[in-house]
């Protein structure tokens, strides 16, 4: 873990300020699943990202936290729509990179996982019902990091949404797989140490390939 993190820190475009693409590269290094994606430098238009569509195009910058609110995300694009979406993004966010990803289809609810630092107790992780309504549902469970697989399973069992892991309406979501993801997240949060501030993986969805993280934000602390 530490070797991966050192290399990742060293490779960041802006030290201590990873963008979505860089966070997802780190998650992929940790064997967590993210959609196939490619980051384009400011102004560049690509018609052939190197994977099949449909596509998602988003602005990709550590400065833009709420990209959906700022018209920074275009979904479900064919090849031609991709070009115009990229043009729009470059016009709206001059000087910012863009991220093209494969649009993933999924089954069941969106989940969220994340991490924060509690002032008294240190790094903690969370899992819960995700998506844009996550703060309305408030269906989340917290634990201190790091944690083991059993404890991660108990976090899921605490959620109101837990029946979706038990065959509710024919959904076959894999609780053990999501627990495994949480364990990895908790180790990441722990290993980042004093550099860690906040992490959001939202949404995380169940796909034919398993749990996949569609959006990721990692905020680090300036070295003091």
């Amino acid at each position, binding site marked *: 873990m530490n070797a991966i993190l050192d290399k990742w820190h060293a490779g960041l475009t802006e030290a201590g300020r990873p963008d979505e693409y860089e966070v997802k590269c780190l998650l992929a290094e940790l064997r967590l699943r993210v959609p196939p994606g490619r980051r384009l430098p400011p102004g560049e238009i690509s018609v052939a990202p190197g994977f099949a569509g449909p596509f998602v195009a988003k602005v990709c910058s550590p400065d833009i936290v709420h990209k959906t609110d700022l018209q920074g995300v275009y979904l479900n694009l064919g090849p031609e729509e991709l070009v115009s979406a990229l043009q729009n993004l470059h016009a709206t966010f001059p000087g910012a990179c863009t991220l093209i990803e494969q649009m993933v289809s999924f089954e069941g609810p969106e989940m969220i996982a*994340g991490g*924060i630092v509690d002032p008294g107790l240190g790094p903690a992780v969370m899992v819960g019902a995700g998506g844009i309504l996550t703060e309305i549902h408030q269906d989340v469970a917290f634990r201190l990091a790091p944690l083991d697989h059993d404890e991660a399973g108990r976090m899921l069992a605490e959620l109101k949404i837990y029946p979706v892991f038990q065959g509710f309406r024919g959904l076959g979501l894999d609780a053990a797989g999501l627990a495994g993801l949480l364990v990895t997240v908790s180790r990441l949060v722990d290993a980042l140490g004093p550099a860690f501030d*906040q992490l959001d993986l939202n949404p995380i969805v169940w796909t034919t390939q398993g749990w996949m993280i569609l959006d990721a934000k990692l905020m680090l602390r300036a070295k003091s």
Partner: protein
Amino acid sequence: MTADPPELQRLFNPKAIAVIGASNRPGNIGGIIFERLMPSLRKLYPVHPRETHIMGYAAFSEVTALPDGIDVAIVATGAAAAVSATEACAARGIPFLIIVAGGFGETGTGGARLEARLKRVVAHSASRILGPNSLGIFIPAERLDTIFVEHGDKALSRGGGVAFITQSGSVGVEALGLASNTGYGMRAFVGLGNKCDLDELDFLDYFGRDPDTACLAFYLESIEHGRRFLDRARQVTPHKPVIVLKAGRTPSGARAVSSHTGRLAGMDAVVSGALRQYGIQRVMDDEELCDASKSLSMLPPAPGPRVAVLTPAGGFGVMCADYVEADHRGTPLTMARLQPETVRRIRDATFPFAACENPVDLTASADDAMFGRSLDALLLDDGVDIVICTAFFAPPAISDSLIREIADRARKSPKPVITFTQYGPFTDLYLRRFHDAGVVGFPSISRAVRAARFLVERARILAALEGRP
């Protein structure tokens, strides 16, 4: 620095105690404490600059005049005098000081300066300090009581298994009051006060290992050395329940929270998750702290979540079923499905026409023996994990013998039996009688059902600690 548990033995079982600031003047706090200590049959040494005798004991004019071998000095003067007295006690090598005086860090900068001097005493001597601003300690079994607030100690003289450790004096007095009203078995009471030295970590370790402690209850506004407290609590929770009321729920960090996770951490969701992770049972208010510690110190963990309700009063039974099935804060209960054999046993013991659904309503025609034999049947049923009895004394054939009928069975049962009782102005009296008979009782249905959840939660903690699903 954490005190060795054997070392704290001297604090909780001292042979010789000095009370600094004890006076014959009525209402004097040192005097009240001194009087409280007289039945403890320890050697007592009052210290007062002018009075020569305190309640018949020869007084010492100053700390330097005290003999050797004093285990505990209780400092009951004003704040400034308390600091000098503490310094003098430390110089005399007195190992434990209980500083009752307030007027320290809780009052502002002047008080904080005085408290800093106490911390210097701790740093530069072998003496350990409880407080300042501490309500003191109370060990019923040792008849050792340094609490100057009236707290109905006669009711507590039987003692019990709860180590009650509180940062707030008033919450402590409430628990003690509850104890004297309705029964509550206390092994020890510790008023932490401002925690300038000894803190919850010391007492967690001590009572965690104390064979006479069945359960630890903490009221805390701040958790010192958060992770260490959790780690040490996990050493205790496999052996005995640890319950925490963490008051002062503050937003998680003043830092800007730009993440969903940060906003969802809200008031203190992290604390709740962390306590659960380490096998600690969290409660949200004073009443719940007392109810949980009372239940967990006296009753076994519930083997499962299935509740049977036995009542001679239909209304209470129906309400009980509602509470069992209602919002559960993460610990669901269910109404047990009674086995045919159980139904047959209850009908044999009562009336052929008895309604033996759960809740089992024996109706107002029931008598004490019917209630007892029906309780037997429920406890024998493999599908029942917990029994809640509503002890209602109004029916004509129900008498005070119902207490014994329930107690005889509850005390022997490996399954928890919880009692609800409500009988107008006599409610507290009956609760006390149940408590004295070894039965856990509550004056409301919702509290009885909530107690069942604590026992289910405890069983789940034990299962998790042992790696069971």
